[in-house]
C-alpha cells in the first residue's frame, strides 16, 4: 500500500493517544509535538496556543487533518523521521500498519 494515499483519518484513537504519549512531553533538544506541528506548517502563534491544551498532540493531528489535503499517514511518518523520532516510528509501526490495513478493508 502507498501510505501517502492513506488519509490521517485512518488512524484510530489508540494510535493518536500513543503518539501523544511520545510527543506531549517537552524535550530540551529532541523533537516534541512543537517540532512536529512546525513541520505541518502551523505558525508560531498557533503552536503557542496549542501549548495551553492538555493533549496538544491530538489537537494538532485533528487540525492538520481538517485543514490540509496533504495530511496522510505517509506524510506523518516522514515528518517523524525528519525530526529524528525513530523511537516512535519503531514502536508504533505495527499499530499504524494494522490501522491502515483495516482502513483499506473498510474502503472496499
Amino acid at each position, binding site marked *: 500500500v502507498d501510505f501517502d494515499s492513506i488519509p490521517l483519518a485512518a488512524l484510530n484513537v489508540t494510535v493518536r493517544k500513543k503518539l501523544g504519549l*511520545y510527543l506531549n*512531553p517537552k*524535550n*530540551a*533538544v*529532541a*523533537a516534541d509535538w512543537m517540532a512536529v506541528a512546525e513541520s505541518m506548517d502551523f505558525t508560531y502563534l498557533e503552536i503557542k496556543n496549542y501549548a495551553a491544551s492538555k493533549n496538544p498532540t491530538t489537537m494538532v493531528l485533528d487540525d492538520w487533518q481538517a485543514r490540509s489535503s496533504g495530511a496522510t499517514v505517509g506524510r506523518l511518518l516522514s515528518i517523524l523521521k525528519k525530526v*529524528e*523520532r*525513530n*523511537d516512535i516510528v*519503531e514502536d508504533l509501526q505495527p499499530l499504524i500498519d494494522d490501522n491502515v490495513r483495516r482502513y483499506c478493508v473498510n474502503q472496499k
Partner: protein
Amino acid sequence: MNNPVTSATYIRSLSYSLRRRLSDFLDPQGRWRDVIMSIRNPGGEPRYSQHHVRRFEGLLAQGCSPTVELLNDWGTTNSTVGELVDILRQHKLLAAASVLFPGMICK
C-alpha cells in the same frame, strides 16, 4: 520492570527508579557534563552542542535533574544501555554503571 536490563535495552525503556538512581550518581559535581559531551550521533558527530548543554544547565536552575532530562532527550533516539555504559566506563563512572549492571566486574 520485570525485564532485566541488558546492553540491548533501549534507554527510553528504563524505569523511573533506575533513572533516579543514575541521577544520584551523575548530577553531583556536574558529572552529567562528561556524559553529554561524549554522546554521538550515528554519523559520529557530537549530538549536543555547547548551547544544548546550557539548556540543560537552565533546567538544573529550575530544580530539574539534568541527568533525568538528558536520559529523556537522548532516549528519543533508539539509544541503548550498552552505549550509555560504554560512556560511563570511558569516564570511570563505574558506580553509575553498576546501577545498570549490578554484577558488573569493575576493573
